[in-house]
């Protein structure tokens, strides 16, 4: 009711700053910073910065941060000085929510993390990412995160177009207990605020045992061949066994069509395959269970598994940003709704052009 009453006498456009008993010079400065005309210029500047960043003309972070900071200062000064905001609560709430969003975005950029990792079937994440990017104030807690890739399925529609991805995982909760989950499209695994997503990036992972010359201890592990099916004709990798100095070039030969383009199929391990290994000019073929002695050690091929590429994202501000956005849009709807309901459009039965 209060809003409707005040809106019957709306503020007629930009009003002069009103700042109680503060020093006139400070009020005048604040009023200039909070100028509504300046807001127009800053919105235009921000739009230009967005377009320039998009075109690659400007470095995105600073190109966007600078006008956004100016807009925030303008907005804060306008909220402090313009009487419109004190007379229209919903408008005030909307603009305060905008300020909160800008603050949260800044906090998010300082503390976020995004990265990638790859896990073979049965492998547990050890806190190490293959690629990472984070804000300067990010406090890493990845060492507390543990989850295991228990295997996945990826369906393909006719034409080798990727459909559903379903990945079984188990993960350790805050009490140290292991729990199961099924993740995939639109369903990340969230642990300690870190959100893990399956990606299109996945492939085959030959598993080996390597016994270095002169040693009796066998080291086991997998190599991740290039992503499949994007690189289905380049299933080869050059790698160096632990402790060795010379690399082994390894290629997977698949003797069948795994993804029939005419059918809906699920990606699976090949029924028949051979590993071709080249080292020091020699070519060796290995099947599961076979081994070969190279100059620096014995390589035993255990079998073929699959690997999944995950992306990880951390930003503690997400729920707060959502809350601020909801408040902003509700306040905006409240403001316009109350304003328009208080003053119904008069064009239907009032003046005409003639």
């Amino acid at each position, binding site marked *: 009711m209060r809003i409707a009453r005040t809106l019957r006498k709306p503020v007629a*456009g*930009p009003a002069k700053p009103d700042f109680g008993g503060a020093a006139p010079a400070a009020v005048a400065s604040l009023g200039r910073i909070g100028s*509504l*005309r300046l*807001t*127009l210029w800053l*919105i*235009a500047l*921000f*739009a230009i910065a*967005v*377009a320039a*960043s*998009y075109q690659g003309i400007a470095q*995105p972070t600073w190109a966007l941060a600078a006008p956004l900071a100016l807009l925030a200062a303008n907005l804060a000064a306008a909220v402090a000085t313009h009487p419109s905001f004190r007379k229209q609560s919903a408008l005030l709430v909307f603009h305060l929510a905008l300020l909160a969003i800008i603050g949260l975005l800044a906090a998010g950029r300082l503390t976020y993390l*995004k990265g990638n990792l790859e896990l073979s079937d049965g492998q547990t994440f050890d806190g190490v990412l293959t690629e990472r990017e984070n804000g300067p104030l990010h406090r890493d807690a990845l060492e507390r995160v543990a989850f295991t890739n228990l295997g996945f399925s990826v369906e393909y*529609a006719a*034409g080798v*177009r*990727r*459909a*559903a*991805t379903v990945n079984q995982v188990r993960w350790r909760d805050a009490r140290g207990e292991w729990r199961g989950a099924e993740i*995939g*499209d*639109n*369903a*990340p695994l969230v642990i300690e605020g870190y*959100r893990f*997503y399956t990606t*299109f990036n996945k492939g085959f992972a030959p598993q080996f045992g390597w016994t270095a010359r002169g040693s009796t201890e066998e080291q086991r592990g997998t190599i991740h061949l290039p992503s499949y099916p994007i690189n289905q004709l380049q299933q080869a990798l050059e790698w160096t066994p632990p402790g060795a100095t010379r690399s082994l070039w390894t290629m997977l030969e698949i003797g069948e069509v795994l993804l029939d383009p005419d059918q809906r199929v699920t990606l699976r391990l090949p029924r028949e395959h051979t590993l071709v290994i080249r080292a020091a000019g020699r070519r060796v073929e290995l099947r599961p269970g076979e081994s070969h002695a190279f100059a620096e050690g014995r390589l035993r091929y255990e079998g073929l598994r699959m690997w999944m590429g995950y*992306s*990880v*994202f951390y*930003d503690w501000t*997400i729920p707060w*940003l*959502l809350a601020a*956005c*909801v408040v*902003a*849009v509700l306040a*905006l*709807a409240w403001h*316009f709704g109350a304003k*328009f309901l208080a003053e119904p*459009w*008069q*064009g*239907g*039965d*009032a*003046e*005409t*052009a*003639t």
Partner: protein
Amino acid sequence: MKAEMILLWSAIVTYTVAGSIAITGVVLRKRPEGTVLALMLFGLALHGASIGLRWERLGHGPFITMFEILSSNIWSLLAMFALVYWRFPAVRPAAAIVLPILFVMMGWLVMQSPRDGHFPPTYKTVWLFIHVGLGKVFLGAVLISVGLGGVVLARASERGAAWFARLPGDRALDELAYRFLALGLIFETLMLVAGAIWAQDAWGRYWAWDPLETWAFLTWLMLVFSLHLRFTLKPAPRVGALLAMGVFCLAFLTFFGVPFISKAPHQGAI
């Protein structure tokens, strides 16, 4: 598929007849408003049946190909306009501005292949419907502003002033256009928020400045700029009309241009 196409063509013919009658009514200063509304509703029913049959056949909504997106947007824009046409009798002659805009989209639609598209796994979420639905209300609201602004601009000429003499004055039309722009701002904001929620789950980030996000945000900024300029500088109705058209052009480019020239993951193509 044959029935879908017959229904779609029938709807397009019905819309075209409705638009032609609306334009003729404005030029001859007649009021065939009941006929225009009835034809629009009949066209919407035929068009809705066509979309429904295709949905049933493919197992997914009209979200993938340019054919589907144009078709569903023509339907939603016309539905929004029909609602306004019914609720605001004073501005009904604006149909002579709005319907030709939709004719352009219909011409574009009939040149598109009605082939099936692949429904990406990341589209299997309720957020698709929320995001797209909010976007349709936003675009519809801006289209109505453009129709009202178009009347204001047309009245700059002597002939236009005569054709649209029955409508309320420019200030009143500008005020109504402003209200629809404000509605557009609310729905575009909601659309961006819903899109961010979806993107967070689908691609692991709520915002990545991909081409569609960037252009949608530029549209939002243009809309905010237009509303703020209106409050701050009290521009003439013709300026308000041009701003509404600027917002619509940016939104149109975002909706129908960017997704089809960009290879960004926002399409759900990976």
